[in-house]
């Protein structure tokens, strides 16, 4: 009976304890749930949520690899190489001295700068934010390997002597891989390829297509929870560009340019080779050039107002080369025929000024072929006056002067062609313009205009991009016929006339075995005190083989010293260029081509 009572009492006591315990648990649970609910509905809930979300993952901005630039055969003109960025995570830095000493030893730079950066206090204060500091941007693989070796050595040392007060440590030193623009061909084609700096400023194709080449940065959410790993969308790299340039032709033309400067003492030389049928620029050599891998040296190489690419960015008074357009207009408009005879008295008055020939002489009766052969200013002025200003300028406008060609190289100069109605145009300009004075054009503009003559009247836009590769597809650039300023007959007639002129003149521009058309141009250089008599721009434009034109070449020598005359300095350079071109472009001499064609037709 007593036992039962005791059991009962014990049971009651136990129940009481259990109940108290249960109540405590219940109370705590209610408190917890209440707190959870309170947090959920409190005004700071959003803050907590944001803080929590920060740990769920992070946004990662992926910068696509910059697109490559190739020549027409697929050789890389601009690519990317792997380099490393070196930085410090300030929160992790254990021994700034070790970091500074290691970097200054391997990279050979200032110890103090590294030490000061690595010693900075970690701070999340928005005004003095200091979390991660970039110490170096582009260290090489070899330098990275050296740092890794030192890192291993220090780790061993620290393991052995961990009792040091501040053991050497590279903790906090971060090395991240990244791609850097590289130019395997260095100086070759540098004036065309160009470069861009970190702000997107630069020159050439790199600048013109900067946004395409760079691609679109992609921001993706990367969850830190592996359960929620998501597929990072396949992002394309920047658009790659295949140029119309041929590496071999470019190298050959650059060599011709360098030789020309050496042999003529010119301040600069420019040769542009274009396919007159489709407008593809096959080579564009000019001076000065630079190794694009060391683009920081730009300012030392391109001093003053030196343009990055003279062929595109520098217009100048063309001189007698321009006469081909005056003659084209005169023939096409029916003002004259090749047989028309002009009696040259050595002087012609227009707009109050007197036009004279290059030698001041009177050449007597001349056919149009004679006018071109002897490059008579008086004859050209007479033609322009006969045509009338409106008709003359209508043709010049149709040839594209005074407008940019639209070539895909940054910094194109549009030249200058004054037109009737302009405040600074005078009747005398009609005379001077007819033989290439008082107007300015770039070599590329000249090539575009001349393509109409070489290509049976069809004028094509010069272009440097053959195709673009974007999203895994290659898109070819179509040929752009920008007009037919003259008829096919006029083009053929003028071409024959220019061929005869060269041959009768026994020009140095002739190349044995090939029938070429062309025209020299010696232009005095305007100064604030009138035209210089000792300094000229010597130019030559020519194309061939005339029955099936494969190249259109423009040569420009700036201030040649051995002779001021283009027929003496520029014409031989054209011939040198053509000799290289016919080999590299596999163009057999005319008679062999004819023979092959006949054999093919007879089969």
């Amino acid at each position, binding site marked *: 009976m007593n036992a039962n009572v005791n059991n009962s009492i014990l049971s009651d006591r136990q129940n009481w304890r259990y109940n108290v315990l249960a109540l405590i648990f219940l109370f705590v649970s209610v408190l917890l749930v209440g707190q959870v609910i309170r947090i959920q509905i409190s005004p700071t809930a959003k803050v907590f949520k944001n803080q929590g979300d920060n740990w769920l993952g992070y946004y990662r901005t992926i910068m696509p*690899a910059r697109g*490559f630039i*190739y*020549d*027409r*055969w*697929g*050789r*890389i003109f601009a*690519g*990317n*190489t*792997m380099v490393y960025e070196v930085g410090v995570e300030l929160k992790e830095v254990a021994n700034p001295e070790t970091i500074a000493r290691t970097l200054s030893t391997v990279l050979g730079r200032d110890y103090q700068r590294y030490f000061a950066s690595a010693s900075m206090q970690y701070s999340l204060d928005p005004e003095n934010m200091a979390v991660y500091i970039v110490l170096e941007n582009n260290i090489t693989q070899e330098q990275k390997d050296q740092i890794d070796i030192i890192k291993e050595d220090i780790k061993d040392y620290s393991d052995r002597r961990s009792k040091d007060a501040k053991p050497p440590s590279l903790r906090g030193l971060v090395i991240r*891989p*990244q*791609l850097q623009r*590289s130019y*395997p*061909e*260095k100086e*070759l084609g540098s004036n065309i390829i160009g470069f861009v700096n970190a702000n997107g400023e630069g020159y050439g194709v790199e600048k013109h297509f900067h946004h395409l080449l760079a691609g679109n940065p992609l921001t993706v959410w*990367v969850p830190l*929870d*592996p*359960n*929620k*790993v998501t*597929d*990072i969308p*396949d992002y394309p*790299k920047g658009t*790659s560009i*295949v140029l119309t340039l041929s*590496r*071999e032709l470019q*190298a050959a033309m650059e060599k011709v340019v360098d030789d020309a400067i050496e042999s003529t003492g010119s301040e600069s030389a420019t040769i542009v080779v274009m396919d007159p049928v489709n407008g593809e620029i096959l080579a564009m050599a000019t001076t000065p050039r630079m190794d694009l891998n060391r683009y920081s040296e730009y300012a030392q190489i391109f001093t003053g107002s030196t343009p990055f690419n003279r062929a595109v960015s520098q217009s100048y008074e063309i001189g007698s080369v321009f006469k081909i357009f005056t003659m084209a207009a005169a023939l096409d408009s029916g003002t004259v025929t090749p047989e028309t005879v002009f009696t040259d008295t050595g002087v012609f008055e227009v707009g109050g000024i007197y036009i004279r020939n290059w030698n001041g002489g009177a050449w007597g009766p001349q056919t149009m072929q004679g006018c071109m052969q002897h490059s008579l200013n008086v004859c050209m002025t007479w033609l322009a006056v006969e045509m009338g200003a409106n008709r003359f300028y209508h043709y010049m406008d149709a040839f594209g002067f005074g407008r940019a060609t639209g070539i895909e190289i940054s910094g194109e100069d549009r030249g200058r062609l004054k037109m009737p109605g302009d405040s600074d145009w005078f009747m005398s300009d009609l005379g001077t313009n007819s033989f290439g004075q008082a107007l300015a054009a770039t070599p590329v503009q000249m090539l575009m205009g001349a393509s109409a003559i070489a290509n049976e009247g069809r004028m094509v836009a010069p272009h440097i991009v*053959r195709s673009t*590769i974007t999203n*895994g*597809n*290659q*898109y*070819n650039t179509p040929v752009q016929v920008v007009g037919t300023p003259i008829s096919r007959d006029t083009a053929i007639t003028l071409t024959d006339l220019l061929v005869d002129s060269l041959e009768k003149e026994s020009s140095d521009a002739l*190349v*044995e*075995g090939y029938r070429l058309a062309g025209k020299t141009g010696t232009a005095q250089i305007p100064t604030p005190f009138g035209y210089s008599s000792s300094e000229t721009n010597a130019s030559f434009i020519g194309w061939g083989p005339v029955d099936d034109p494969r190249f259109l070449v423009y040569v420009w020598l700036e201030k040649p010293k051995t002779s001021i005359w283009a027929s003496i300095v520029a014409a031989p350079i054209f011939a040198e260029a053509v*000799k290289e071109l*016919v*080999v590299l472009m*596999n163009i*057999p*001499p005319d008679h*062999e081509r004819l023979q*092959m064609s006949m*054999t*093919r037709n007879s089969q």
Partner: protein
Amino acid sequence: MTCVGCEKVWNEKLQTHVFHGITLALKGPLLGIYTLLKWRSMETVKQLTQAYSITPWRKQLRVIGLFLMGLVMASSVAVVYLGVSARTVAVGSQIQSMMDDIERMRRSNADLETTLAFLTSNSVMEARAREMGFRPARADELVYIEVPGYVSRREAVLAPPPGLQSVETTPFSPDYSESLLDWLRANALRQGLLGEVQP
């Protein structure tokens, strides 16, 4: 003394007493029987309870058993869940690692392509050719021969033209993203089990 109406009252009282008497006479035994039966049944229940009652330790054992069974079941579910989770996490981690590998390989490919371009650049190739005794040919040294069927050098085709669309691929198989319900739906649809009427 004669009481008028007293007889009637007396009769009524008598009737009442008789009725009560009868009632009592009848109730008494019934109550007795009822009480007896009640006592008997309680005894029976008590006896039955005693006969079939379980000892306290058995009761505790049963509770503990049930608790343990629940615990084992919960543990089994937890173990399966943890196993699946661990595998998912491991695969997720591998995927992240592979994505990093892809990035690294892309960079490496670009680097190798450019390094190769440096090694085969025009100046390097020209220097090598000169070292080997070659020199540029002159126009007058060339002999042109027509070779029937000869295909001349073609310009670079580094990617297919836009007409030829490549099949879009994803690095993940649907097996990794498809839920059981998706799979059932897809397979059921394929076999026409969901009865979708095709026109």
